[in-house]
């Protein structure tokens, strides 16, 4: 019983202590006034990785740092910056890791090339196996004498 109480107390204590008590940044939860700008910001935020939670986008995360990143995105969009320029600003600081948008890079090109290659191989095999059959006379077609 005591152990359980201690365990529950430990569960409560850590998250409380490891969280700041400041209010979120102004544009962490507040939308931009202009709906077109907000839509642009939202589209970008869905493709940026939350650095604290790592498998969520900053649009999905309630981590304070994700809120601070949303504030950066919204204020920069409001200042007229291009969404791709903002993405690049983050990539310049954290590398490609921060962006969910796939890009052709030195290490990523096989991901794009291999499916194409497999399609070509599959196409070649299919063409070899059945593509030429209607012309007749290939060794794999039995005639009645064989049966």
């Amino acid at each position, binding site marked *: 019983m005591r152990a359980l109480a201690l365990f529950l107390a430990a569960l409560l204590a*850590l998250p409380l*202590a*490891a969280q700041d*008590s*400041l209010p979120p940044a*102004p544009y962490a939860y507040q939308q931009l006034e202009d709906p077109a700008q907000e839509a642009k910001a939202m589209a970008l935020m869905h493709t940026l990785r939350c650095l604290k939670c790592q498998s969520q986008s900053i649009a999905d995360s309630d981590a304070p*740092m994700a809120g601070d990143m949303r504030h950066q995105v919204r204020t920069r969009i409001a200042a007229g910056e291009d969404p791709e320029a903002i993405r690049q600003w983050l990539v310049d*600081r954290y*590398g490609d890791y*921060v962006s969910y948008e796939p890009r052709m890079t030195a290490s990523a090109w096989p991901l794009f090339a291999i499916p194409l290659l497999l399609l070509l191989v599959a196409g070649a095999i299919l063409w070899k196996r059945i593509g030429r059959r209607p012309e007749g006379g290939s060794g794999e077609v039995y005639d009645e004498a064989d049966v």
Partner: protein
Amino acid sequence: MRWTLWVPLLLFAFFVGLAGYQLSQPKDEFIHSTMIGKPLPEFELKPASSALPGVSTADFRDGKPKLLNIWASWCLPCIAEAPHLEALREAGVEIVGVAIRDKQQDVDRFLETHGNPYSRIGADDISAIQLEIGSSGVPETFVIDGQGIIRHQHIGDVRAENVPELIEKLREAGQ
């Protein structure tokens, strides 16, 4: 039997081998800053504590390499690294702090309880400077050379074994 029959099995074995190899590799969950070798951004932060001045970029351009410690009073590993930052200060290292999303009374209480190795502490209430230098958590410690160029990033709390390492990086940055 035709040799091509073995190709699917070989491919399968290759992928099993690849997965096995990747599983046996230690995972690096750190997000490394790509700002190493680049200058600090222009910024000016108000004081985070009642005793020490705030921080601006100009403070890093006095010719002397320094540590820039990104921390917070609400961060538990920051308590663990406090004695090692103190050891660095005693070795003559200047440590400039940036407190992330922190309140003045909390910073004061932290310094009272765990010691104060800092020469100045700036308040970054919306993680703006943290994002500018590619830091993704607290605590992180950056080596900044005398011209304000970022030279090295230490992710996580500074431990006893990191103290000589950081002194060495500072020496390199001073050359």
